[in-house]
């Protein structure tokens, strides 16, 4: 084609666009269908059946599973738990990582050193972080790190994860996620800051603006718009899928307390725990998938994703 030399054998076959396309992309799309699309379709199917302990159910129940999920106190509570978690985590992560990025951006010397230190928590798994948080920082003993610190201010030791009123487990959950992800988002902000042209600031100084809040508000923040939206939504979607730290901080011996169950923890125990109710679990998965698709659609709108490289 197009006057290029004729190829023989393998090179000839892989020169025909349709063949070449499916040789290159076939394995990926086959896998995507089997492990991505088929599960979703199957779960839509399962969600209309009574499916306890089976994946090939026979008893059609219509929308009953959905009705049960949407009126289930436990499921709605899990959405509430996620909302509460996101309300703490998302704004705090945003503010702290932007602040950290501004500091790193100003540090001319030893920046790589500080950058490494801030980024290092991202190497840690949520399981290991939960281990540290649960067994040594917030272990509830008077000798635990958190209790030692508040002890210096004269406060009595707190049993952290074991207290539900007031819910002291929340600072434990939130601080863990902040530690793990603030540095990562700070680096994304730092990359955004480094792309802002210097000339913008210089022009502002020539016009008499003083560095500080004014230039931050009128130059830095608007220039970071795309990065900010990306950080907010990445963060929101990540919080939506929170499972590891909840399971490992609050779970004990295969059980989990009835409170503070985010959606995935709730689904885990409904579908794969003692209930093995795959019909209801599937209905829950479909509802969650729809919710998250709605969020991502908004993200796509805001960012114009898929319009090719920027």
């Amino acid at each position, binding site marked *: 084609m197009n006057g290029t030399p004729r190829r023989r054998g393998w*090179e000839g076959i892989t020169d025909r666009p349709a063949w070449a396309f499916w040789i290159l992309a076939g394995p990926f799309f086959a896998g995507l269908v089997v492990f991505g699309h088929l599960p979703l379709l199957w779960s839509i199917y399962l969600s209309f059946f009574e499916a306890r302990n089976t994946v090939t159910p026979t008893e059609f129940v219509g929308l009953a599973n959905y009705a049960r999920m949407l009126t289930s106190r436990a499921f709605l509570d899990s959405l509430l738990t996620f909302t509460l978690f996101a309300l703490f985590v998302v704004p705090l992560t945003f503010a702290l990582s932007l602040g950290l990025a501004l500091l*790193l951006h100003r540090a001319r010397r030893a920046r790589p050193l500080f950058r490494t230190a801030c980024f290092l928590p991202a*190497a840690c798994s949520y*399981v290991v972080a939960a281990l540290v948080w649960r067994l040594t920082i917030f272990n509830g003993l008077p000798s635990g790190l958190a209790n030692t610190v508040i002890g210096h201010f004269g406060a009595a030791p707190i049993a952290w994860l074991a207290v539900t009123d007031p819910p002291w487990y929340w600072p434990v959950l939130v601080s863990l996620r902040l530690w793990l992800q603030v540095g990562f988002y700070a680096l*994304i902000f730092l990359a955004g800051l480094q792309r802002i042209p210097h000339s913008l600031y210089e022009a502002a100084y020539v016009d008499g603006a003083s560095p500080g809040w004014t230039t931050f508000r009128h130059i830095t923040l608007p220039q970071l718009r795309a990065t900010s939206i990306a950080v907010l939504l990445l963060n929101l979607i990540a919080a939506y899928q929170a499972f590891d730290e909840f399971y490992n901080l609050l779970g004990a011996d295969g059980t989990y307390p009835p409170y503070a169950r985010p959606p995935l923890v709730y689904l885990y125990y409904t579908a794969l725990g003692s209930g093995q109710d795959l019909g209801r679990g599937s209905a829950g998965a479909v509802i969650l998938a729809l919710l998250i698709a709605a969020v*991502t659609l908004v993200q*796509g709108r805001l960012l114009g994703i*898929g319009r090719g490289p920027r």
Partner: protein
Amino acid sequence: MSAAGRFAGRVPRVTVGAVVLYATLTLVALLFLLPYLLILRNALSTDADITSPGWSPLPRELDWGGFAALFSGRDPLMATGLRNSAVVAVLQTAGRLLVCSAAGYALARVPYRHAGKLVLVVLATLMIPAAVTFVPTFVVVSSLGWVSSWRGLIVPGLFSAFTAFLFRQYFLAFPRELEDAARVDGLGYWGTYWRVVLPNSLPFLAAIGLISFVESWNSFLWPLVIAQDASMWTVQVVLSTHLTAQTADLQGLFASAAVSVAPLVLVFVLLQRHIVYGATEAGIRR
């Protein structure tokens, strides 16, 4: 630090602002490193010292018993878990790079008439993160008979729509001249991809590979669901089992945690540049 500071030239001046800046950064850095220090401290302290009243930042007395026990095989689950995690993370990363880079190249460069529609399929799949559908995925994988198997642990993670999309975006910006030269030399699309494009994309492959490895090594929910037989547990599942059962010895647990996290910390320190590149690409392109 101000405009004056920025344009002051080469003579370094110590200002109050700079002192505050570096003091704050040092404090933050120490705070970020603290949990790692705690893992090491506890791994090198006896259980009695870990829980004894009065907090101390360093081990009261160095005790290597935790690491010794780990490597002498007193906790066979942990040794198996580390091995399983290594196998899964290496194979999953290699497989994902291969499968997704090939798909990304096809989507970016092969003039197939349905390619545009298939890009939309990938984008639509991106909207629903795999973790949300773990129950249905478990249903499919278990009906293939893959529960507690290498296949079950590794294969479902190979087909990341996100990774394929990143590769497509990267290949769209790949210099066309190199490919044209390869095609004039008689290579088909496969040959161009395999012999010219991939070898010239090593930094990008390294960046995506590292992120993929970390994700795979640290993943918890899927291994927890699919590896029902203890012999197939990854290190995260073993750690979690000990943690939630509240039975294991503290020192041993922290020694295991240290060993499980050490390779990644090392990789992060040594290859920081690649990881930051990959992470910011991934974060911004997403």
